[in-house]
């Protein structure tokens, strides 16, 4: 059960990043002045991003309560891989082999940092 909740947490947190990127691209890019910026924060993309990050964080906190950190972190670090994969699939970004290699090293690194 915790595993499923953990996957859901990673899903919500990754979705929030994609929504933040879409919001930045569609609503924040080219804005001038604070007023416009603040208005953009209330666009559907960025409100959705905020909701997703809150749900993801709450699920993550629940998982941390139930599960060993050293077990939970590798999943969270997979978030980097998921975010890069969705950037490629849904945002049409080009991801070079170099970038993939860097992301994989980071994922392994985060897993090690969480080991006691």
């Amino acid at each position, binding site marked *: 059960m915790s595993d499923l909740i953990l996957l859901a947490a990673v899903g919500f947190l990754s979705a929030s990043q994609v929504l933040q990127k879409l919001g930045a691209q569609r609503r924040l890019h080219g804005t001038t002045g604070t007023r416009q910026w603040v208005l953009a924060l209330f666009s559907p993309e960025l409100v959705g991003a905020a909701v997703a990050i809150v749900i993801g964080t709450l699920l993550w906190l629940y998982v941390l309560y139930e599960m060993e950190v050293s077990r939970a972190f590798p999943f969270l670090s997979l978030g980097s891989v998921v975010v890069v994969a969705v950037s490629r699939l849904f945002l049409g970004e080009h991801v070079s082999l170099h970038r993939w290699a*860097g992301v994989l090293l980071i994922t*392994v690194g985060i897993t090690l940092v*969480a080991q006691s």
Partner: protein
Amino acid sequence: MTPSSQRFLGIVLLASSIVLSSVGQLCMKVGMQELKQSAVALAPTWTALSALHEPLLFTVGGLLAYAISMLAWLAVLVRYPLSYAYPFLSLSYVLVYIGATHWSRLMETATPLRTAGTLLILVGVVLVSRTEGRAAI
């Protein structure tokens, strides 16, 4: 703005986002830890409340730093592709590790395995930073 000052602003925003989120995490940890200790040690009196002053300041300050880091992150996303910028956020694991093992209020133990992990993260981030990061918007 000239391309070079645009580039400079992008780096400053990315660095602020990473540093502020790390400082935020560390302050929240210190605040919550000391809140827990004072709550155990003290009876609920006014003197106790004033003793909570500092831990509360850390907790709220930490949350504030975290919130500002999120705004800086949005400004980063205006400038860079997500798949380029996101891996840089992992640098906060490195900063939090250094802070948690060196800040006198925390003093968590460093282990060779964890240190190796932070080094791997650094190598990974250097690899990503050498890929093409100009925003395609």
